[in-house]
């Protein structure tokens, strides 16, 4: 006790010395004062020096006010501080003598009056004065800042959707709350600078809500999660609105009703004691760390959370990245394509083969190696992981479940698989549709699942991986599978099949891809809007990919989707018709054959068909379609390429098969864009132009003719 008294006396003397030197705006010195007062308060608390605790506590508050610039009268405040320290010195030097009460009383009285006036303005008051007194910012004229803000804010918002959903699963995971909080916090901060008041106000309100949750003063309930998701959507809309010309007035967004909701949620706080004391951010982080070391009664949940956090830490390692305008990127890739062609033109130049120079041929091979490598690298620039697209599905499944009252968990794998950037957007809608399909038609209602001896919560797997020259995306659910009897019934009813005896299981399953097919008995809000799986199939065919379905009745359904690695290159079969060369994308080709003369039949004297095993396929004479003179007039002299598209098969008649080739797709340009039957062109190894067949279009023309 004596020891403490000496320590205190020394500390207070030190303080008195500091006070002489201090400037009201010297923050570092104020910080040191604050630390001193805190330690004095602590020691005196330990030693039970009642009056010192009170005075030093009050002085500490005074210093805090000084730091925060909240002193009403700086001079008076510092006078008081000096007098307080004197008071402390007196207490310590003459502990047994009573203070002159006048000194003490006047100190407390003034303290009281000052503190009374200077009561902290709270969380809301400060911004108004701060922003109104703001000078103009040149920054707001910097359009780039807006553009950056939009894209970055959207990224953050999308990223937090996933955290929110994880939060739903582990509502006490501080890191999830923090991530979500941070996004709103940052958007609030930047929008304040950019004078986007409505966004600022709204994100601030949501942030306040999350802050309460972060400090354990508000429980994370389903209601809260729903609201936060709504808030994300609203903010997304408000921010993407900024993209419009002339920064549109955001008044069309009704934030008031949302603000009212926040108020309601905040008022919903139970009036009991908070679950835990107010914890500042760094406190949370350190307690988390402390848990593993000190607290031996670590619960499994804490362990899991900690592990999850570790994993997240690994995955968020920020690689250095550069943002590039996609147009620039496409130009680069285009030019590299040209370079590859130019290189091969040089190499295949007949003059070149007459030159016998070792150094030249070595150099040319070196050039070829480099251009090939360059092409590979530039192609990879177009590739981005499917992660974002996949993660959006988590939200989709969640929303579907909450609407339909079903329970399902989406398990992602292979999110790091890369796909062509141009494919990302094209994939989104079909994937959403398939997710709806899985949850709405596949996964059974919880009660039914239990009845069937399955887990109450259904499982939907979303996988991506690379296989050969394709990216495979699989969606698998453990629901009820396809009801083939009902599919057949429906197909007959709609006149999609006339004679169904010969249909195999696989063929029946594939009926769901027929246009206008939909078996959902109840038309729900989300699926069964008359848009069927045929749209999905078309979407994949457009991407030069395909969808397959594997179903086991009662046990679930698996959709396998194949898309090419890139949209810039197509894996094709090079064929010749007359003098022209065409590329037929390999995914559409079933087989190539030379028919016997007796397999060719003319129906009604006009439509030619070829018999391939048990079926008759219409023949499409490509030379007629493209008006070129063929070498071979008769199908039995020529070759037939059996192509499949939209569930139909046709035989494309060609003169000759040249080989399999990967070709770089070039646009036909605006003027030829609408030409049916051709999807692009490529420059072949010999410098000639080869047209790429659009099988879809070819089938349409052939059917119409």
């Amino acid at each position, binding site marked *: 006790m004596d020891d403490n008294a000496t320590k205190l006396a020394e500390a207070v003397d030190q303080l008195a010395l500091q006070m002489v030197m201090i400037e009201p705006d010297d923050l570092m010195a104020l910080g040191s004062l604050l630390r001193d007062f805190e330690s004095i308060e602590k020691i005196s608390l330990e030693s039970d020096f009642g009056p010192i605790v009170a005075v030093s506590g009050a002085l500490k508050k005074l210093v805090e006010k000084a730091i925060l610039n909240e002193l009403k009268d700086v001079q008076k405040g510092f006078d008081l501080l000096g007098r307080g320290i004197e008071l402390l010195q007196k207490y310590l030097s003459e502990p047994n003598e009573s203070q002159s009460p006048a000194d003490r009383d006047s100190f407390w009285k003034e303290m009281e009056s000052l503190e009374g006036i200077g009561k902290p303005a709270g969380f809301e008051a400060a911004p108004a004065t701060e922003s109104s007194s703001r000078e103009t910012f040149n*920054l707001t004229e910097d359009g780039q800042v807006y553009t950056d803000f939009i894209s970055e804010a959207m990224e953050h918002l999308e990223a937090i959707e996933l955290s929110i959903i994880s939060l739903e699963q582990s509502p006490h995971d501080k890191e999830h709350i923090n991530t979500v909080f941070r996004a709103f916090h940052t958007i609030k901060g930047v929008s304040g600078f950019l004078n986007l008041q409505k966004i600022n106000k709204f994100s601030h309100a949501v942030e306040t809500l999350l802050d309460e949750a972060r400090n354990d003063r508000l429980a994370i309930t389903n209601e809260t999660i729903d609201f936060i998701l709504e808030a994300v959507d609203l903010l997304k809309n408000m921010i993407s609105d900024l993209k419009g010309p002339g920064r549109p007035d955001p008044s069309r967004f009704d934030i008031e009703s949302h603000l009212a909701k926040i108020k309601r949620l905040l008022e919903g706080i139970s009036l009991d004691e908070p679950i835990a004391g107010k914890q500042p951010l*760094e406190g949370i982080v350190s307690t988390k760390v402390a848990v593993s070391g000190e607290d031996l009664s670590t619960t499994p949940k804490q362990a899991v959370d900690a592990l999850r956090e570790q994993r997240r830490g690994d995955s968020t390692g920020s690689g250095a990245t550069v943002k590039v305008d996609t147009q620039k990127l496409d130009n680069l890739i285009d030019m590299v394509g040209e370079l590859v062609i130019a290189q091969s033109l040089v190499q295949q130049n007949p003059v070149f083969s007459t030159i016998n120079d070792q150094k030249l041929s070595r150099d040319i091979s070196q050039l070829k190696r480099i251009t090939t490598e360059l092409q590979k690298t530039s192609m990879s620039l177009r590739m981005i992981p499917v992660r974002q697209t996949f993660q959006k599905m988590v939200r989709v499944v969640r929303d579907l479940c909450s609407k339909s009252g079903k329970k399902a968990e989406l398990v992602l794998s292979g999110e790091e698989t890369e796909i062509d950037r141009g494919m990302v957007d094209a994939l989104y809608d079909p994937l959403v549709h398939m997710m709806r399909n899985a949850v709405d038609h596949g996964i059974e209602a919880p009660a039914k699942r239990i009845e069937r001896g399955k887990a109450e919560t259904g499982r939907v797997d979303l996988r991506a991986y690379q296989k050969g020259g394709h990216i495979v995306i699989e969606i698998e659910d453990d629901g009820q599978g396809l009801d083939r009897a009902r599919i057949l019934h429906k197909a007959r009813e709609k006149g999609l099949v006339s004679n169904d005896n010969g249909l195999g299981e696989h063929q029946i399953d594939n009926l769901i891809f027929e246009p206008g097919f939909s078996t959902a008995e109840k038309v729900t809000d989300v699926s069964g809007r008359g848009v069927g799986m045929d749209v999905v199939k078309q979407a994949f065919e457009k991407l030069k990919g395909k969808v397959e379905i594997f179903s086991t009745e009662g046990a679930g359904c698996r959709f396998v989707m194949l898309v090419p690695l890139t949209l810039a290159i197509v894996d094709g079969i090079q064929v010749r018709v007359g003098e022209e060369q065409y590329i037929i994308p390999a995914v559409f080709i079933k087989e190539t054959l030379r028919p016997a003369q007796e397999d060719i039949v003319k129906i009604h004297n006009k439509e030619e068909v070829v018999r391939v095993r048990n079926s008759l396929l219409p023949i499409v004479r490509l030379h007629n379609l493209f008006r070129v003179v063929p070498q071979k007039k008769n199908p039995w002299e020529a070759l037939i390429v059996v192509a499949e598209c939209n569930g139909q098969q046709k035989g494309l008649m060609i003169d000759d098969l040249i080989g399999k080739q990967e070709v770089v797709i070039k646009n036909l340009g605006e003027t030829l864009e609408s030409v049916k039957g051709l999807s692009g062109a490529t420059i072949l190894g010999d410098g000639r132009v080869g047209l790429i067949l659009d099988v879809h279009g070819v089938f349409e023309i052939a059917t119409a003719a």
Partner: protein
Amino acid sequence: MPDANMKILVVDDFQTMRRIVKGVLKELGFTNIVEADNGVSALEVLKEEKVDFIVSDWNMPEMTGIELLKTVRASEAWKDLPFLMVTAEGKSEQVLEAVKNRVNNYVIKPFTPATLEEKIRKIFDGK
């Protein structure tokens, strides 16, 4: 005002925010600016380059501004490095925490070029 050529490290996880801070600093004539997106990467920059002044946000993933401040102050090499903390409005407990940990000054978002200038002046004129 301090040397216009001093190297300033701007730490914020939001790129737009860094751009804004940089913009304001440039308006004040400071052009020698390096960036980091959280405390961890800020420490990496500090190890690599000789930084004269840190402007750091509080709220960042992986390593927050206050953790960065504590680490910097605890290190022999950087313990006197001028440090300006950027905090959000209404977070007085953050300000106090930062001041207790020897921050040179703080500035509240959103701030004006004039405010930032004043704070920088206060930090460097006192030296």
